[in-house]
């Protein structure tokens, strides 16, 4: 048998020193920002019953979940997402809470990714959920929080919005099986124009198929709305487009000149419980979105509590990756002082060290039995000051 005692499983890694500082810094910035807007933090278990993710609508394919069983043989999963556990909590313990609820989280999610692709199975997501409001103001609040989150990373960013409702309206008018609808969705999502056209041509020409063909090409700036106006003469679609345009204009103002707001009517992700607004955030230099979210008005009702919600999650790993690529890792702040105890003065030394820490210094207690080794250690670790405790304490400058 082979031993794997010296390595970590594929898709995971150890983070050391500077990498941790960078990660924590991103997480703290985001959490701080959310809390300053009145969001309250939640922590849900890393393990959940499989059933939480196996609702009527299957948002997460079972082959992408890490599964195990509990002591009673029941199927558990490592949480692949935070929104569904939060929906579960909202529908149970928070059922009588005053609405709207403003919740935030900062936790790891686990999904199996294809091997040897340089992807991570363990991702830290920091995000918000705004529960119980269907107002446009709620959508804008989430967009504005997303813009602030991206801006806080100090890089060129772009926020993209869409509305999956337009696709759902259109495809709902087609008399085809769910299987075919899924094929259409997939081809719009991947902007696979040749395959989408072939498939829609086989369904016969109609205003609906013509509109679906155009959907993936409708992305960019405000001009998209001009082009989309001729998409289809339909009351619902016109209304959805007008609402989105409204949000787009407000979002552009909220964003100011710091970043770019764009629109893509072809955003039709799969694992999405999304019902309306979709948002995605990009940073220059990273090949995948670092922020994603939207409105999910039907999800919590699957847990028995029918209320609307909107939110997003930031992929902290993704952001850390861009930052590591763009600049050096943050330096670890070394100790300011090292305290060395002569034999018999150990307790005195701990007391002295505590006093120094109370002044705000980083203080180490030396773990050597001769002063020369302490000096060498201090030199190597760039510690400026050695304090010797030998009954009457004295300071030695390095």
């Amino acid at each position, binding site marked *: 048998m082979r031993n794997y005692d010296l390595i970590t499983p594929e898709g995971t890694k150890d983070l050391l020193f500077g990498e941790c500082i960078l990660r924590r810094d991103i997480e703290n910035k985001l959490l701080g920002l959310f809390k300053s807007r009145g969001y309250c933090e939640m922590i849900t278990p890393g393990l959940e019953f499989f059933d939480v993710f196996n609702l009527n609508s299957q948002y997460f394919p079972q082959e992408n979940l890490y599964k195990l069983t509990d002591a009673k043989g029941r199927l558990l999963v490592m949480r692949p997402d935070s929104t569904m556990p939060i929906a579960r909590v909202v529908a149970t313990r928070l059922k009588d809470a005053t609405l709207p609820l403003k919740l935030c989280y900062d936790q790891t999610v686990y999904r199996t990714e294809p091997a040897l*692709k340089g992807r991570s199975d363990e991702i830290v997501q920091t995000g918000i959920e705004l529960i119980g409001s269907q107002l446009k103001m709620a959508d804008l609040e989430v967009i504005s929080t997303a813009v602030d989150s991206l801006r806080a990373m100090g890089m060129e960013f772009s926020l993209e919005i869409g509305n999956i409702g337009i696709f759902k309206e259109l495809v709902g008018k087609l008399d085809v099986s769910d299987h075919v609808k899924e094929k259409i969705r997939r081809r719009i999502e991947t902007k*696979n124009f040749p395959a989408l056209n072939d498939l829609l041509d086989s369904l016969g020409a109609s205003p609906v198929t013509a509109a679906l063909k155009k959907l993936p090409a409708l*992305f960019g700036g405000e001009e998209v709305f001009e082009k989309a106006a001729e998409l289809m003469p339909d009351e619902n679609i016109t209304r959805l487009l007008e609402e989105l345009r409204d949000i787009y204009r407000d979002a552009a103002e909220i964003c100011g000149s710091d970043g770019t707001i764009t629109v893509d009517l072809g955003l039709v992700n799969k694992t999405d419980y999304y019902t309306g607004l979709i948002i995605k955030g*990009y940073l220059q230099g990273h090949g995948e*979105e670092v922020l994603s979210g939207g409105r999910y008005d039907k999800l919590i009702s699957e847990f028995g509590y029918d209320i609307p919600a909107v939110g997003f999650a930031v992929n902290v790993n993704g952001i850390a990756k861009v930052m590591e690529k763009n600049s050096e890792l943050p330096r670890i702040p070394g100790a300011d002082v090292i305290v060395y105890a002569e034999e018999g003065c150990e307790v005195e030394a701990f007391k002295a060290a505590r006093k120094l820490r109370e002044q705000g210094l980083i203080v180490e207690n030396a773990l050597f039995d001769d002063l020369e080794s302490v000096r060498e250690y201090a030199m190597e670790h760039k510690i400026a000051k050695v304090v010797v405790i030998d009954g009457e304490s004295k300071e030695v400058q390095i």
Partner: protein
Amino acid sequence: MSKPIRIALTKGRLEKDTVGLLEKLGFDCTAVREKGRKLILPVPDANLEVVLAKANDVITYVEHGVCDMGVVGKDTIMEMDGKFYELVDLGFGRCKFALATKKGYDFYGGYGIKTIATKYPNVSRHFFEKKGMDTEIIKIEGSVELAPLLELADGIVDIVETGTTLKENGLEVIEDVAPISARLIANTVSLKMRHAEIEHLIKLIEENL
């Protein structure tokens, strides 16, 4: 001028056809034509940077966003899958995936599980899954035609261009699996962040296909 757009080309025939297409658009591809052993080459007047890679790697580089665009065969896309936009059917590099057996062999007869030899296990698996048919799939690296001749497999799923190799070895196509041609793909973020430039290039390409 902004940072060049990086486009990964599948080495070999697709590379030559793509360079031909770029020249038809009026771009100077001298550096690519006289590449020697270099793997990253400029096409300055198009503000492009051509990267030469193996088919599977084209997809990997585009998925990660280290290349903004790529030219790769539908065969590789079907086998690899992945997250990227598949924008244009370039029309060249045409061939097909097909199921072939020894001449006259009754592949669908009997109730025994059939064995398939292939370089494309995912394509084969999906094809038979759709038929609701259990098969045993064996991955072969070299000439797949050997497997039925050596009686390792009942049939093969492979790329067929002219069918000459099949014929000369006493095999025949019994069913087409999927048509194949070269595709222009793009990284999902690049398409958004560099929309105007990429859209312009796509328009030029589509007008000249």
